[in-house]
């Protein structure tokens, strides 16, 4: 039980990960699965850019192109960006608040498997008759019109993955509210924890509308309902609202944790506490709240009328204010600091101008009357890639370099890291800057080709070249990861030397019980405070005692597998396949059966005894 470094066979490791409920291992799972999906989405992006490199290109067909953009958007948002953020939340947040575990380890595992099987299901569409092709927004009239099973894969896959995200969010919320170490008050929580908290709360309120929307769409497509069928009294605008009531908060669910990551990096490498910590917290909460009031800015051209458009335009602009507060607080965190330009800091630093550019174009598209021009053009594509790639992806790359030692106990190579940065950063601006102009020059988005002679050729070519740079950057990162893991040079608790928060107070990677004794938190940047007083570690808040741990479990996998099977049944039921309904029932039976097993079989976990803990210590020293 106590020695972790034992060499295990592949089968044992696999089983370990299939059944794990340890938040740190679940973080690995999220990182790997999210990373794979990121590469999938990235390859799709590259295919888009190849097709659009020259006018009248026939690299992919029109239908295939629509499948590719749909899957690119859907994969990147739901299966890459969010899970990768979840990876860091899982790896770091419990450590940052000084907790031994998350509130619901079992649910945590279940959340991962739901996301994974949902994503798997969605991507199987490529092999089973075609991917969804109505855009990641899947507007109702087109998605009901779409033939084949593509949209069904979208609806069912996202439903499953979305459930995983929802319970993941609840788990983080309860963890943060209930499991903070002694002395860790709300206003002492690191900003990454705060943003995790607010993003999780947003998940809690934003995902149910998506669930409902997807359910209605499923009923319409698979079970003969008429929510969106105009001839039967239905209304397609309902879908648009439900999607964006979810969709807009979703983009802040992505960016807030990214802000959190950068907040940590800025203060760490400036050796300074975060400037204006309380206003940062306030701004985070405010962004989270306002995020729910603005969804109709995606629907300015739907025809909601000038009153609605005006209200939503002004509400949207308001979000610029708290975001600006954050930008200036970051700048002033570095101001007067001692800024060390490590790889994570490269990303954080480059994030500021990149994101501001994306943010201000956001405010530009929020001017409703002008958005009649911007909407559904490459200007919007440029806007959201500037905020997403310039914000979220840079944060993910930064976080990967920053927390890699904490997650895996070894440092990524800094030189390769910086090469990755430059390639990616240059490629990013090359790809997306020109797209603002393409949009203004009259290029709609989601076009599988464009005709020559409209003045769009050069811009598109530049954009495609940029994507090549980004690919090169990502590939160097992959090489870096392989090289690093092969060399596997172990590092200590605080490999950057400037760590401020609790995760740097314990070993890298942390032992499976995290803290042998819960730390006593005496202020913001708890670990930094102790270091400044010359202490090596945290003052414990409790004597060494037995630690209660949850048991591993295969049930999360089974519950999810059941839903995965059931989804196939639901889908093929429209083809009058005789086995479809039985399969649906079988799948649900597996799910509910596994849930019953879970509730009937008491699982109280186990205890690590005091003696073992002290032995561990000695073993480590020897």
């Amino acid at each position, binding site marked *: 039980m106590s020695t972790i470094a034992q060499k295990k066979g592949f089968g044992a490791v696999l089983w370990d990960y299939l059944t794990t409920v340890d938040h740190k291992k679940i973080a690995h799972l999220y990182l790997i699965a999210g990373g794979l999906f990121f590469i999938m989405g990235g390859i799709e992006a590259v295919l888009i850019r190849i097709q659009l490199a020259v006018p009248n290109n026939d690299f992919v067909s029109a239908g295939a192109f629509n499948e590719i953009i749909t899957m690119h958007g859907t994969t990147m948002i739901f299966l890459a960006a969010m899970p990768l953020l979840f990876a860091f939340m899982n790896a770091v947040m419990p450590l940052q608040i000084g907790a031994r575990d998350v509130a619901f380890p079992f649910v945590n595992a279940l959340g991962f498997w739901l996301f994974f099987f949902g994503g798997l299901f969605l991507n199987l569409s490529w092999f089973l008759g075609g991917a969804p092709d109505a855009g990641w927004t899947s507007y109702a009239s087109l998605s009901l019109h779409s033939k084949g099973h593509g949209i069904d894969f979208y609806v069912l896959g996202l439903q499953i993955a979305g459930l995983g995200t929802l319970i993941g969010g609840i788990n983080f919320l309860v963890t943060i509210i*209930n499991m903070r170490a002694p002395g860790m008050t709300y206003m002492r929580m690191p900003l990454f924890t705060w943003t995790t908290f607010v993003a999780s709360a947003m998940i809690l309120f934003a995902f149910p509308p998506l669930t409902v929307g997807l359910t209605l769409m499923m009923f319409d497509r698979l079970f003969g309902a008429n929510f969106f069928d105009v001839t039967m009294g239905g209304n397609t605008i309902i879908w648009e609202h439900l999607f964006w009531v979810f969709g807009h908060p979703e983009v802040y669910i992505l960016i807030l944790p990214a802000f959190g990551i950068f907040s940590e990096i800025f203060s760490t490498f400036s050796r300074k506490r975060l400037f204006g910590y309380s206003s940062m917290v306030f701004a985070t909460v405010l962004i989270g709240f306002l995020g729910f009031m603005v969804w109709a800015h995606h629907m300015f051209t739907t025809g909601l009328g000038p009153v609605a458009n005006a209200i939503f335009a002004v509400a949207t602009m308001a979000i610029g204010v708290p975001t600006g507060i954050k930008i200036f607080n970051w700048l002033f965190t570095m101001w007067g600091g001692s800024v060390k330009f490590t790889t994570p800091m490269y990303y954080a630093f480059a994030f500021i101008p990149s994101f501001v550019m994306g943010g201000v174009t956001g405010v530009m598209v929020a001017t409703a009357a002008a958005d009649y021009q911007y909407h559904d053009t490459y200007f919007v594509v440029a806007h959201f890639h500037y905020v997403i790639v310039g914000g979220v992806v840079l944060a993910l790359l930064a976080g990967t370099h920053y927390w890699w030692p904490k997650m895996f106990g070894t440092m990524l190579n800094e030189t390769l890291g910086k090469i990755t940065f430059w390639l990616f950063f240059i490629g990013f601006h090359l790809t997306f800057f020109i797209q603002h102009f393409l949009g203004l020059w009259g290029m709609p988005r989601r076009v599988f080709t464009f005709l020559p002679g409209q003045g769009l050729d050069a811009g598109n070519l530049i954009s495609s070249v940029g994507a090549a740079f980004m690919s090169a950057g990502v590939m160097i990162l992959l090489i870096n990861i392989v090289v690093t893991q092969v060399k596997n040079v172990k590092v200590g608790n605080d490999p950057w030397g400037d760590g401020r928060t609790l995760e740097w107070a314990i070993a890298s990677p942390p032992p499976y019980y995290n803290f042998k004794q819960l730390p006593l938190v005496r202020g913001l940047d708890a670990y930094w405070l102790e270091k400044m007083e010359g202490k090596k570690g945290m003052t414990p808040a409790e004597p060494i005692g037995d630690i209660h741990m949850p048991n591993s479990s295969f049930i999360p996998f089974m519950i999810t597998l059941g839903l995965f099977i059931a989804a196939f049944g639901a889908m093929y039921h429209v083809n009058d396949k005789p086995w479809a309904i039985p399969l649906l029932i079988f799948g649900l039976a597996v799910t509910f059966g596994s849930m019953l097993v879970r509730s009937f079989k008491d699982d109280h976990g186990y205890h690590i005894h005091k003696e073992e803990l002290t032995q561990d210590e000695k073993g480590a020293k020897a």
Partner: protein
Amino acid sequence: MQAEEKLTYETWPAAPERATLEAKNKFLGFWLFLGGETVLFSSLFATYLALKDKVPDTSQPLAKDLFELPLTLVATMLLLTSSLTSVYAMYHMKNFAFKKMMLWLGVTVLLGLGFLGLEVYEFNMYVHEGHKFTSSAFGSAFYSLVGFHGAHVTFGLGWILALMIRNYKRGLNLYNAPKFYVASLYWHFIDVVWVFIFTVVYLMGMVG
């Protein structure tokens, strides 16, 4: 394990549903889940309100042709009462009276079953009047909203029953007390939703 410890009336804590960390987490997590469910049902209500009486042709019944006061009233009374009985159950849980708790839970389940039975009867009736899930947007929205609630009732019944069966021989302890408590919260929430359903769907439907 403390949660499994055999307790007596004397040692039973004042708030057994939150006496251990696991219980606290469960308690809070469930409340948060209910916060999410609120938005879920709001979305369904909103959809229903947008699609109310939206039918393809005039031959189809509208809300004011369908709903009847007495049936709704009886269903409402059943569900409201079941909320009270589950409060009784929790009262006895807090007083460490396991048998009485089980008894009241049993009554709750029976009332819930009665409610479900009425709902099935009612749906059946509507279908015969031409108001089907597939016959109009109105039908789809109605059955989705009310049916979603019905599914919650069904799940709640299954949940409470499973808890009762599982713990039949065990008596109360700090491991299962929070489970009973949370299940009863769920039951109340179903009732809260119903209050809106009978108001917004049935009564407002009859007003026109």
